[in-house]
């Protein structure tokens, strides 16, 4: 482990420099020390940048950093004929509620951000306690906690399609692929925390809508190392297919492998996995019949290719998740220009709800949900569904979710 040890020491030295720089930085000074630059719009990120869910936080922040650079290079956001530059500030939340509340306070109270983005349920819960009372517009990826969404939270936008919205794309697709009669019963496997409970709720509503009988619903512990017991219990009921939201790619792969080894052959859909390489590496030949909604493994349009290229240059890596989040900042830009203000967040929120983008990484985008939540605050976009067949992952279907009339 020579190499790693070497890097560790470099890291430590670098760390000291960073620490010194951080101490010198005016970050902790009261806001009077900040001279508010004219014509700048500050966007704050309260996202997990360290800890187990750092992956999500970095993917989200990258979309904003890249988008801000692109927009600034092109002359900024034009509001009332005046160009406004974008500035992105991100603080770590470790993916914890209390820490996220603190990070958002710092963004809102010290840095005076009027726009905050966040990622994952825990960070979102902490963030909302601060943003909504302060009149700050928030744009997040969060699937659960539906009681913290809708009419009572007019400045709160959920840009990522949850497993519920995705269902209106991938279930019709699966019905076409396998035939309606082959998918009469379903089972659910999720983590035994709030995310799992919320996703189970979405799953129930979806299955009721499509008239699919629900069999087992099983919940695992994050500490589990083996999925044989939980999978054995799930497939004992012989469901036609299994939904594993919101399991991350690694756990999904382990579930798939266990299911196939225990003799289950039906399709397994995973609305949160989105990391085909991991699934193929772990599950190997067992990965066939896996359905991954909102996962674009092969960027095809010019926009998608350009985003992939820019991310590779800027951050040295690119993943489908970061691509899925890259459109958020462009919809904000459109909203500022339509509203003619970046100060009045309520006006911006109204304008944002009406924004429709045609050509983003995820294709066509709009905000919906009026009949379900009272306001159009949920992002809906083309769902790129990837399937794995004979050890190869490819995009098999692209469609805009066929949302029900009362959505």
């Amino acid at each position, binding site marked *: 482990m020579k190499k790693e040890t070497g890097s560790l020491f470099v890291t430590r030295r670098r760390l000291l420099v960073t*620490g010194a720089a951080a101490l010198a930085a005016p970050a902790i000074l*009261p806001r009077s020390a900040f001279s508010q630059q004219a014509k700048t719009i500050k966007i704050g990120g309260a996202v997990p940048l360290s800890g187990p869910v750092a992956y999500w936080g970095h993917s989200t922040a990258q979309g904003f950093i890249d988008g801000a650079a692109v927009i600034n290079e092109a002359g900024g956001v034009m509001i009332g004929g005046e160009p406004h530059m974008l500035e992105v500030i991100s*603080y770590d939340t470790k993916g914890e509620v*209390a820490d996220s509340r*603190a990070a958002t306070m710092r963004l809102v109270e010290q840095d005076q951000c009027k726009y905050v983005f966040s990622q994952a349920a825990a960070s979102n819960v902490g963030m909302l306690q601060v943003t909504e009372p302060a009149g700050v517009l928030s744009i997040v990826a969060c699937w659960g906690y539906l009681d913290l969404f809708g009419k009572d939270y007019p400045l709160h936008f959920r840009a990522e399609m949850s497993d519920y919205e995705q269902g209106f794309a991938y279930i019709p697709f699966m019905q076409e692929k396998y035939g309606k009669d082959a998918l009469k019963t379903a089972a659910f496997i999720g983590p*035994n925390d*709030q995310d799992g409970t919320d996703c189970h709720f979405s799953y129930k509503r979806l299955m009721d809508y499509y008239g699919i009988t629900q069999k087992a619903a099983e919940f695992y512990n994050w500490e589990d190392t083996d999925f044989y017991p939980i999978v054995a219990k799930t497939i004992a009921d012989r469901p036609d297919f299994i939904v594993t939201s919101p399991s991350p790619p690694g756990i999904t792969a382990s579930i798939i492998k266990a299911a196939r080894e225990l003799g289950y052959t039906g399709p397994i859909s995973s609305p949160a996995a989105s990391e085909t390489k991991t699934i193929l590496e772990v599950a190997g030949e067992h990965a066939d019949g896996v359905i991954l909604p909102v996962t674009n493994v092969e960027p095809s349009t010019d926009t998608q290719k350009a985003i992939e290229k820019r991310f590779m240059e800027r951050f040295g890596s690119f993943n489908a998740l970061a691509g899925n989040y890259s459109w958020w900042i462009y919809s904000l830009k459109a909203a500022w220009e339509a509203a003619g203000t970046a100060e009045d967040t309520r006006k911006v929120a109204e304008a944002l709800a009406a924004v429709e983008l045609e050509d983003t990484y995820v294709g066509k985008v709009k905000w919906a949900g009026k009949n379900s939540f009272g306001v159009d605050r949920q992002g809906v976009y083309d769902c790129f569904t990837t399937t794995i067949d004979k050890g190869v992952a490819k995009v098999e279907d692209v469609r805009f979710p066929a949302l029900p009339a009362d959505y």
Partner: protein
Amino acid sequence: MEDLDRPHRIAWLALLAVALVVPFLVNFDLYLIHVGIIITFNVSLAASLWLIWTLGVISFAHAGFMGIGAYASALVLTKLGLSMWYGLWIGAFISGAIALAISIPLMRTRAVYFFMASWAVGEVIKRNFAYFKDFFGGWDGVFDIKPPVLDLGFLQIDFANRVAYYYLALFAVTATVWVIHRVNSSRTGMIYWSIHENELLAQHTGINVFRHKVICFTIACTLVGITGALYAHYQTYISPKTFDIWKSEFALVHLIVGGLTTVGGPVAGAISLTIVDELLRATGYFRTIFFGVVLIASVLLLPGGLETVPGRLRKLFQRTSGR
């Protein structure tokens, strides 16, 4: 019995004076006052953990007992409608009662086995909050834990105001540290340290070691239960994840970096590391890595922790001025 000597007393009073005027010094910057409130929680957590350490062991169930105080106070408000003024004492009482019941079997274990058994206790506490969904709210947690209002008739203080809460939290942490200091400098405190040094010897001099261990553990858990209640009503939201093993582990880090021989250690450790944690918020992974480096460096390079710094400086100063 022995009380503080003069320099120490001056240092403590100076610290308290600074803490009292901090909101004015930072020009009532709300975010910095928030950091101040978090510091008071971390100080109480670390200081009460230090009280257990005077027995020579470290409990990893400490965050769990903080959770018991927090949940009790929160549920008293959301289910019975009683404000924090009741919840605080109910939380402290329940936390202390459970600590008393648990510590009777727990204190049979020693050294490393104690540490691990306490870890299991903390984990069971956390998982019970998650498992009994109907009562504790499951992983979803408890929302809307409102801060209290103090009605003095002529004056009403709403603790939703952050400055007011800062002074409330400061009062609580001062009281906590004072209680711990009093216990530690009393004859009982001496007994704890004698158990710390040599349990067998203490037993042979006629000390009822088991009883003292149980009482000490109960006092510490009662104190941390109060901290938990204050924490819940400040954050207004709690969930089982809030009180996981990492909270105990970070309290331990504060303790070790600060120093282990006096109550000044955990206070110094919690104050300095909470500030550093805020400074590193924008640095991503370094926020985690830095804590590891500080922890190892302070064990190997600064044995005794921050509390030895004044002494070291004095020695250095005397040596250089003497020559």
